[in-house]
């Protein structure tokens, strides 16, 4: 056996365990998914028919699917702004403290450790019990809404819980980036007469742009897959008013209908949407970084 052949053989041997689980549980499902999307497989019968693009054509007239796509877009757009603004504000405020940095970081990051399912149920208690109590007894009547039952408010309930959970993670990334901004640069600018707002927008923000790119990417990516928090808070309801794409797919496949082929077609569309949008985002923000 030649030497290069033997090198490749040992390489394969050492990669085999990782490769096998990876191929079986990720790569093959990902590729075969596109195939299933063209069948009418329902999960029960052993055989199924090839229907080519019928599923995709049906998706185009699926009102509930597009409603869930619209909901998810709205959610992602709001989350990208709200979560990043709150996280950045927190990071700047915490970084400016001389004392207590550690304790603030610990507290604000904590919700990120807890599953969104558990967090969602804890907030459910607040939305359905505590806020009513505050409205009735403390006169906070602006809180007196059906936070879970009324889709206008349940959207914001979902945003609040997601923000609570996600912000800590983003904040840690922003904090790390802020520590990389040289303090003497800010001092020099202050001596030259710049106020703190100018310092932030002209010096700090451009210097932490890579962190912003990562955080927006992360919010986009996890936002499009939102499931847990909605599952625990509203279950997608009332009706299907707060259903996200991931929930719509889950329902199509595992609740009631069991139309795996059709649900896989929806999954493929979700994948394409996520890919196109994140690629555009990375492109745009990377070119911004380079301009500076």
């Amino acid at each position, binding site marked *: 056996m030649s030497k290069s052949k033997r090198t*490749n053989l*040992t*390489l*394969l041997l*050492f990669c085999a*365990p*990782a*490769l096998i*689980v*990876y191929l*079986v*549980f*990720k790569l093959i*499902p*990902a590729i*075969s998914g596109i195939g*299933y999307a063209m069948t009418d497989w329902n999960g029960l019968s052993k055989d199924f028919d090839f229907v080519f693009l019928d599923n995709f054509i049906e998706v185009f007239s699926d009102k509930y699917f597009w409603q869930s796509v619209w909901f998810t877009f709205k959610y992602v757009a709001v989350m990208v702004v709200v979560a990043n603004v709150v996280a950045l504000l*927190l990071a700047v*405020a*915490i970084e400016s*403290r001389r004392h207590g940095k550690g304790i*603030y970081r*610990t507290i*604000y*990051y*904590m919700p990120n*450790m*807890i*599953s969104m*399912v*558990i*967090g969602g*149920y*804890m*907030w459910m*208690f*607040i939305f359905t*019990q505590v806020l009513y*109590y505050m409205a009735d007894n403390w006169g906070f009547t602006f809180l007196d809404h059906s936070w879970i039952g009324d889709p206008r408010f349940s959207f914001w309930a979902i945003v609040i819980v997601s923000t609570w959970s996600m912000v800590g993670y983003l904040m*840690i*990334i922003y*904090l790390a*980036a802020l520590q990389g901004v040289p303090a003497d640069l800010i001092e020099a600018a202050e001596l030259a007469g710049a106020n703190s707002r100018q310092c932030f927008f002209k010096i700090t923000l451009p210097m932490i742009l890579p*962190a912003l790119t*990562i955080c927006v990417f*992360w919010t986009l990516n996890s936002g*499009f*897959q939102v499931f*847990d928090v909605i*599952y625990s808070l509203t279950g997608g309801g009332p009706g299907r008013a707060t259903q996200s794409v*991931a929930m719509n797919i*889950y329902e199509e*496949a595992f609740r009631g209908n069991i139309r*795996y082929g059709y649900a*896989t077609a929806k*999954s493929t569309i*979700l*994948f394409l949407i*996520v890919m196109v949008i*994140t690629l555009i985002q990375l492109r745009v923000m990377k070119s911004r970084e380079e301009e500076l």
Partner: protein
Amino acid sequence: MKKKRAISSVLINAGLIIGALIWLSPLLLALMNSFKTNGELLTNVMSLPTELNFDNYARTLDKMHYFRSFGNTVLVAGVSVTLIILFSAVAGWKLCRTKTKLSGFIYALFIFSMLIPFSSIMIPIYRVILALKLKNSLIGLALVYAGLGVSMAVFLYHGFVKGIPQELEEAAMMDGCNQFQVFWYMVLPLLKPITATVCITNVLWVWNDFLLPLIVLGDNKKYTLLLSTNTLFGQYSSDWTAILSALIIAALPVIIFYAFFQKQILRGISEGALKG
């Protein structure tokens, strides 16, 4: 100027403290009310409990089969993370040290799928699980996690190995060690820092993941902590004292984990993010 600065500093502090209270409020309110009787809770949700009454906890520990669900979760997280670490460390190391066309191809194969969202492949994964008769199997669930987790871990190990000099390994080979011994006795200990990061991030991911076990596990004897909590919530939809005590004990393991590993967790995030 100085005065203005002092005022703004006080304001920022006040804002941070109020924010911190809001951030902790779901946990604090759940904890506070979990000791109450139902009547006590319904009259005032904002009061402190009159006594530390652990009846609710006793009830939910039993009802949600806490220790069984906890054991199941530990088993899944333990097996999957061990597999991820061993499989990815050896693959990442060998991929980095071998410079052939094949190694480039395998590495690209691992990286390429990193951005595929789970929800878009969950149905074909479910199909594989059915085909391999792994439905309801905790080990099966752990294997799926391993499959989903290795690509990121291979990426991290590959990057870390690049920074380790190769001479030592070559010297050991000269001395007659075989490749496996070199890996086990020499390389693996050197990988400790990145192994800690891989371990912690993956334990948290597996521990807090909800959708995959929801699909794979149908039998409630196999339920993980999150699934049991979820079931309990469905059964006791208006009995808040039971639910809140369940939420507290379900959140407790991660909070303890956080208390012990906070430094490593936070470092893992900032390192991972700024590298990637």
